[in-house]
């Protein structure tokens, strides 16, 4: 508890090198990229990579809440696919009567579904008192099976009439900044405000660092954690809204293994996996690092296609080790 309070008091004034770790790592990866391949630093490539990392970054902001409150959510990838499927079916259903407005209504409905999915996870964990790992492993299977069932194992495409009006949400830009990046920034700013500047954010950390002490201090740990899962669900739905226009379909492989990327991004970013410490901006750096590494693997010819995953694993471990030693 004491460490939490001092950190909040000191954070804005002093530069803490340990907290800069993820950003230094990101700068290093980008520098290496620029050196080994001339195509890396081009505007298009950077825009592609940053836009692509938006989904993982948005979901990972939610995961930062869940993890720093002392829980874990393995269901985000499947939930993402499920919410995407529900949204597309809703939009297709409404399109004949509402035209392009179906997108807005569908997106709103998606947010509700996402929040409810998160609430379900949260209640199983807090009211059901089941380990988050097992509870969300269960819902992960449920959401994945539901999307497979809804699509008959194939794909659920969005109506052609909706493709064009919806397309800019992924491919469009505001003042040259791709729209998904703008959305990510908005989510991050709101997330950082809630986590660092509100009572809820402090309770989240308290619940994560020591649940018993938090309970004795009058914090309803169950309420805090359930809310974190709902925030996670909302983030998944926001990611889904940006995701649909990219390929215009949901399939049983949508969002597969994203939960692992999300957790990796959060941890690289400096959030403690056991809870009690959350770093929203670090999380975003983590998501960017993962995407940049994947991009570099394709751009450079140094690594055999069979070994790409191994090199990615080594880089992630090195980044974590560097983090530890800077401390």
């Amino acid at each position, binding site marked *: 508890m004491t460490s939490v309070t001092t950190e909040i008091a000191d954070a804005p004034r002093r530069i803490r090198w340990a907290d800069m770790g993820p950003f230094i790592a990101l700068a290093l990866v980008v520098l290496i990229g620029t050196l080994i391949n001339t195509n890396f630093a081009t505007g298009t490539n950077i825009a*592609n990579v940053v836009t692509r990392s938006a989904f993982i970054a948005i979901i990972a902001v939610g995961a930062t809440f869940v993890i720093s409150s002392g829980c874990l959510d393995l269901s985000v990838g499947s939930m993402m696919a499920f919410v995407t499927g529900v949204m597309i079916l809703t939009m297709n259903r409404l399109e004949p009567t509402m035209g392009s407005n179906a997108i807005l209504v569908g997106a709103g409905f998606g947010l509700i579904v996402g929040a409810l999915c998160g609430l379900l996870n949260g209640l199983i964990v807090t009211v059901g008192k089941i380990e988050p790992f097992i509870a969300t492993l269960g819902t992960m299977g449920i959401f994945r099976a539901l999307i497979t069932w809804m699509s008959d194992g194939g794909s659920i495409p969005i109506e052609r009439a909706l493709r064009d009006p919806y397309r800019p949400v992924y491919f469009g830009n505001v003042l040259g900044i791709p729209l998904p990046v703008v959305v990510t920034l908005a989510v991050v700013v709101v997330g950082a405000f809630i986590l660092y500047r509100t009572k809820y954010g402090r309770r989240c950390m308290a619940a994560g660092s020591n649940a018993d002490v938090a309970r004795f201090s009058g914090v309803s740990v169950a309420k805090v954690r359930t809310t974190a899962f709902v925030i996670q669900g909302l983030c998944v739905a926001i990611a889904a809204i940006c995701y649909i226009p990219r390929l215009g379909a949901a399939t049983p492989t949508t969002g597969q293994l994203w939960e692992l990327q999300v957790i990796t991004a959060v941890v690289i970013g400096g959030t403690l996996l056991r809870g009690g410490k959350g770093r929203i901006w670090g999380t975003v750096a983590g998501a960017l690092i993962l995407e940049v590494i994947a991009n570099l693997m394709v751009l450079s010819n140094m690594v055999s296609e069979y070994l790409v995953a191994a090199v990615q694993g080594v880089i992630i471990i090195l980044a974590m080790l560097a983090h530890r030693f800077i401390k």
Partner: protein
Amino acid sequence: MTRTARRALGLVSAASLMALTAGGAMAQDKRTIAVSIPAATHGWTGGVVYHAEQAEKEIEAAFPNIDVIVKTSPSATAQVSALEDLSAGQTLDALVILPFTSEELTGPVEQVKSNGTYIAVVDRGLTDPTIQDLYVAGDNIAVGANTAKWMAEKLGGEGKIVVLRGIPTVIDDERIQGFTDVMKDTNIEILDIQYANWNQDEAFSLMQDYLAKYPHIDAVWANDDDMLLGVLEAVKQSGRTEIKYALGGNGMKDVIEMVKANDPVTPISTPYPPSMIKSAIYMTAAQFAGQAPMRGNFKLDAPLITPENADQFYFPDSPF
């Protein structure tokens, strides 16, 4: 939502079908064909399940003395258990199986065979080919080779291309081998081959990276139509116009629609049709319905799907 409604209707009709067949089971000379296939986890297996269910309906309607039981399994171990369950409760006259893996399923299928069951194997062969009475499979090498021949001819034997491959498996290796063997004899340079795991999203990202890395690409081959859709979206976004052809494979209905519409970038596809399960079920049924003995190996060719023959390969109701 309409899908859900259709599904529910399907369940009701399946239940009534079961009631019917249960009544008919009293009749003499009832023959049972068990069909064991992977569960629908992605487009292609979704197609397999669809065609197996279609075959079940059609055959049971045409030949009342034949009962077809379709069982789907999500993993190799689950498939082994399914075989045990199927053969424990009843005597099977025939088993049509698309094995998850060759090694793990060979023993259990041999067990079923020892009761005198006729064995038809589809797609992936067993390690001991003497077990099977009938073998129906597609030709993955031809999928790669036929696409390569067409592409090489259209490019005039020279140019620069990029390739996206699937999940590291025999299927993927054979397609890539068939493709690269043909390309070796041309002046076409394969700039890059990377895995995109038969996944639309990964194919989209990989294609974006290819476009960033290579200033000039004449053609793209994604060895599966699912990936092709991701590739096309990335090309569209980049605004690059030098890419003359982007081809896939498998015969997904969305891509067949493009072929039918004479799409300039994707004018052909190559089938590796999930409907092969249906062909195998029909061949198996033939010997119980009209005494038409069937034994041997049937390798389905991978002819090019062109606007002229596209209708044959187009299943608008199938999920794939």
